[in-house]
């Protein structure tokens, strides 16, 4: 258990009945050396996940959500990435352990599912070989036992005829099947933490819902802490308990999913929600969009990073860096105007819970049925 105090609110951190804290990330900053110069890909990220809980990390491409996930497991090229802050897991700071020690965590205690199941399985090894390899790295056992274990794991993910599939090569399987194999591989050593980096983005819509449900079921069955990275607010509404919204390498808003979807505070979160189509969206009108473009990491604004695209921005925003500020228990936002309640006032206080779309409207396509 950790005693770290963090700004974005540990709901029930003092409650002895609370579920075990699995991971606590504090002040995570990742700098990357690129050919165009050094960039800070994510800056001062704080979050925590409890056992059985799902944290959603949301944002556009390039906002740093994948870098955040990969920093937790130290998957970025060690020659170009520089991490600071702490990632506390099992009472250990993962950012300061040796590489060989880190390998024992990867795939054993912490697992990751990637976006593209077409490229994330090795094309020249069978499904069985890849599953068995993972088992044998973390749990010494005979090859036969490992094979049986692999078959069981495939069966758990709903793959029909796992005895035959285990001898298949990835190219013989459909995208959904491959993602099931990836899930089986991620869960085969019963990790305490699962990180799913856009696990459904590359799949077709009906498969998306199935895979999402599978991850959610397995998460429940194994009481796993889960970090779900997505750009799809429908997915967040459906499976997450808490959510962290990221913009240009920073967390701009964090809190319980219902609160954020019903009552977004940061202008960026408001914009995201407004541009997400719901069931009752007027299809004859173009969807609202957030004007402007995301600045590049090479050209990060001095003040609020969202100011250039923010309809509520004023000079003070452009000059001063914004701090992530707690506005309620477990709820924080990086916008001084939102903290002062000025945005609700300027926007005509639309967020009384009446005019905000109910969360069900953000549901992923095919989520029902």
């Amino acid at each position, binding site marked *: 258990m950790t005693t770290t105090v963090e700004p974005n609110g540990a709901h029930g951190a003092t409650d002895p009945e609370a579920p075990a804290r699995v991971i606590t990330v504090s002040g995570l900053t990742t700098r990357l050396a690129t050919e165009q110069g050094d960039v800070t890909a994510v800056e001062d990220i704080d979050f925590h996940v409890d056992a059985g809980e799902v944290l959603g990390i949301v944002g556009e491409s390039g906002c740093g959500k994948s870098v955040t996930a990969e920093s937790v497991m130290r998957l970025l090229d060690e020659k170009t990435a520089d991490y600071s802050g702490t990632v506390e897991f099992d009472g250990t700071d993962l950012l300061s352990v040796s590489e060989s020690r880190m390998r024992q965590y*990867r795939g054993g205690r912490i697992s990751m599912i990637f976006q593209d199941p077409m*490229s994330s399985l090795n*094309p020249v090894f069978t499904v069985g070989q890849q599953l068995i390899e993972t088992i044998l790295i973390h749990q010494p056992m005979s090859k036969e036992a490992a094979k049986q274990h692999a078959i069981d794991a495939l069966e758990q993910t709903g793959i029909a005829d796992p005895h035959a599939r285990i001898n298949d090569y990835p190219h*013989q399987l459909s995208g959904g099947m491959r993602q099931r194999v990836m899930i089986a591989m991620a869960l085969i050593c019963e990790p305490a933490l699962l990180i799913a980096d856009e696990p459904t983005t590359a799949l077709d819509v009906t498969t998306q819902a199935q895979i999402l449900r599978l991850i959610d079921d397995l998460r429940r069955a194994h009481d796993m802490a889960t970090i779900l990275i997505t750009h799809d607010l429908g997915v967040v509404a459906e499976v997450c308990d808490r959510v962290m919204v990221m913009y240009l390498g920073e967390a701009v808003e964090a809190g319980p999913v219902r609160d954020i979807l019903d009552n977004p505070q940061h202008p960026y979160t408001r914009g995201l929600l407004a541009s997400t189509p719901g069931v009752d969206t007027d299809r004859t009108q173009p969807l609202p969009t957030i004007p402007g473009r995301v600045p590049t990491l090479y050209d990060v604004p001095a003040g609020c990073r969202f100011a250039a695209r923010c309809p509520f921005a004023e000079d003070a925003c452009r000059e001063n860096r914004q701090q992530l500020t707690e506005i309620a228990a477990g709820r924080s936002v990086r916008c001084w105007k939102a903290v002062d309640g000025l945005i609700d006032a300027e926007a005509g206080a639309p967020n009384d819970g009446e005019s905000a779309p109910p969360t069900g409207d953000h549901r992923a396509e095919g989520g029902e049925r």
Partner: protein
Amino acid sequence: MLSYIVKRILALIPVLAVVAIVVFSLVHLTPGDPASVMLGPNATSDQVEALRSEMGLDRPLVVQFFAWLGGALTGDLGYSHFMGAAVTSVLMEHLGPTLSLAILAEVVALIIAIPAGIIAARRRGTAVDQGFMAFSLLGISVPSFLLGLFLMLIFAGWLGWLPVAGYRGLEEGLGTHLRYLILPALALGAMQAALTARMTRSSMLDVFRAGYMKTALAKGVSERSRVYKHGLKNASFPILTVVGQSIGTLIAGAAVVETVFNIPGIGQLIVNSVERRDFMVIQGVVLMITVSYMLINLLVDILYGFLDPRVRLS
């Protein structure tokens, strides 16, 4: 897998037919009558006529072709009047040194190139990488005869460690055989090594970017196993292609290196036969080189099948 191999072999038949026609036409497309060229300017027309009928040149072209083809299929490539021996036996006599040289050159090239390419890829952008790549550029740019002469000068001339030139067959012992062959093999293999090293590097770099390498890392696979098991097997396909294709260059390059080091191989045979217009031998050599090139490519295709399940099963 078996049906894949059979398919590959069947696909060779039409290619072989075209090769046979082209090689056969070689004699008939060359200006000048082979018989009169062979006999020289002082021969009488009767002598030329006699030789023409002896060589079968007075028969219709189609008949000649099938007679030649039938012979070629049974291992009879005709008779060389210059050498006073059957072309097949002449070829066999010269094949040994060239085969030894080419195989040793390729082995030396692979031993140098694959580790160098992997190291360069893993240390991309560092001085080690740049050093290796500069060296490989040198390897591609320096002609093999020049490199051969330098090697000769250093290792045979100055240091006196190795014989200057010549050839000793395997029957004189492996040590002696290799002592005579190592310098020409280095000279011949340098370009091969340079090409293969570059291909290994770029192919490994591509593989390092692949999703499954990140998956392997996230699974807890060790760095060594990631590079050599997950990486190299995937990177080997383009490397294999380059090696297979450049073996043709190796055979052509052998002619030059054999001349420099005075090795009685196929290269020398070609040069000598062209000089004296020994068409029967030229025909035989060209046929043999083409067929061996095709067989090497067949071998590469079959290796692909073993390495890559996507090729095998499609």
